[in-house]
């Protein structure tokens, strides 16, 4: 068996496959389908300081090879997570990574400080890229100064591995990546969903309650791949790639483009066992290509 382990900041991952925030619940929803301990990490649903009911129904529209969502960060708040969910998942043999959200810098800090105290949460993913909330969210991720400011503020109160999740809804994602790297991020993850919309022509109405929503799934893969490539050229810190990964070949493509690890999102809805299948597929690929360690493959794209 090849060496699948990778390192992201201080985080030692047993393989490069994590599950993406908002697509894997708190892991428990998948416990009947797979052995959660096989995963390198689970990025749990985005948390905010207080309970959020999220956006009204309808929240989903299927599109060509993808879907739009406008969940709007529905969650029961960070304290509920700490008191009720964390105790149930903390002893899994996989890394629990918390996706942190806020409408203001103060809110991000409030959640971060609480997460910083959890012994079994070795990393957080700072979400500055949610397209489905009115205040904060993506607003922080679309300009270099605001991305830098929130990353810096969180860095000051967070001791462990800080991953910043980037929005693809920008002109130059590499500039944003450089800004958060300078502000002290240990890694960047990308991409979050692309702002999109769907219309019911018969009813002459938008399908989503909020008119626009975030596009995910294979439809976005070529753009996500390009962005991972661009960002990995621009920064020194590790890049975690995602966007439309459906199988091990997709994952390998992101790794070749420069991702040290990947996250599986929407694919979990279609095949709840896909994350484990991707780990197995990556292992097979390495064996077939006589590669001893996944690290050799990171950014190994041959462009001669």
């Amino acid at each position, binding site marked *: 068996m090849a060496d699948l382990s990778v390192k992201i900041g201080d985080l030692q991952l047993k393989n490069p496959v994590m599950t993406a925030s908002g697509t*894997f619940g708190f892991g428990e929803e998948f416990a009947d389908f797979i052995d959660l301990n096989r995963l390198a990490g689970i990025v749990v649903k985005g948390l905010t300081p207080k309970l959020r009911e999220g956006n009204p*129904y*309808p*929240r989903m529209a299927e599109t060509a090879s993808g879907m739009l969502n406008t*969940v709007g960060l*529905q969650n029961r708040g960070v304290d509920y997570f700490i008191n009720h969910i964390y105790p149930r998942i903390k002893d899994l043999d996989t890394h629990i990574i918390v996706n942190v959200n806020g409408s203001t810098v103060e809110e991000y800090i409030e959640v971060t400080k609480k997460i910083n105290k959890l012994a079994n949460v070795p990393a957080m993913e700072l979400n500055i890229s949610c397209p489905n909330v009115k205040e904060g969210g993506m607003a922080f991720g679309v300009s270099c100064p605001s991305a830098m400011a929130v990353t810096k503020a969180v860095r000051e109160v967070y001791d462990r591995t800080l991953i910043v999740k980037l929005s693809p809804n920008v002109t130059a994602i590499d500039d944003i990546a450089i800004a958060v790297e300078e502000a002290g991020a240990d890694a960047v993850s990308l991409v979050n969903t692309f702002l999109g919309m769907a219309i019911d022509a018969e009813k002459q109405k938008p399908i989503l309650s909020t008119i626009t929503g975030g596009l995910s799934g294979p439809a976005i893969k070529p753009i996500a791949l390009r962005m991972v490539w661009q960002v990995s050229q621009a920064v020194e810190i590790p890049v975690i790639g995602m966007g439309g990964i459906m199988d091990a070949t997709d994952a390998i493509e992101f790794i070749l483009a420069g991702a040290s690890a990947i996250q599986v999102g929407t694919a979990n*809805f*279609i095949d*709840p066992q896909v994350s484990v299948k991707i780990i197995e597929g990556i292992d097979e690929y390495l064996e077939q290509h006589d590669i001893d360690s996944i690290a050799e493959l990171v950014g190994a794209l041959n462009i001669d």
Partner: protein
Amino acid sequence: MKKVSDCTVNQIIWLNENNFLLELIAPDSLPDIRPGNFAELRIDDSRDVFLRRPFTILETDKTNNTIRFFIKIIGAGTRKLGTLSEGDQVNMIFPLGNSFSIPVKGPVLIVGGGSGIAPFILLAKELQNQGIPITFLFGGRTHQEILLIDQYKAFGEVFITTEDGSAGEKGVVTQHSVFNKIANYNMIYACGPEPMMKAIGNIAHHHNKSCEVSLENMMACGFGACLCCIVETKSGNQRVCTEGPVFNINDLTWQI
């Protein structure tokens, strides 16, 4: 426990040009399946049908591990399912969702509108086992939409309404004369288009009857992971796929 299984198509039985029964054979013994539970079927090789499609479990047979679905063709996914033939594979996640509650005593009234007839065979079996008398009321636009009646007759009295009067009483379900005797019933179950379920909920509410409805919200995953399928309840947004699809109308925030 939920399972992901590669099932085999055993047969497709056409009821008319738009509605059919799909019978699948599971690869191993069936888990416990409750009335109201549903399954998510994967429809392969189609760019238009990216996500799975949810369908209520109509019937099960533990002796040969078969599961039946009642399917109405409304778009690309359901059309594709209708083109399957014996021996084809269908990947299925099941059983999903909660189930109807069974009252201590009857009789009960079951109301199905349009294609909202699938949850009630398993429910009727369970009620019959408990010795609870059942009255059914099914409504559709025309007699073409009144399906599976013979099966339901085995469990109780069946009333019908059609909007064009081509079968049963003419009108919509809520106008049916059975509601003149609403006081006789201890519990009401409903499934169908949302305006119809709200109208039934309204009647139940005003007669102080317990009423459960089975919702069919749009779903991305079907097993609790995406939070796309939510319905507003008195205790906040809940997932129709997990806390539902069956809800007591008193728990919903419907204006009735």
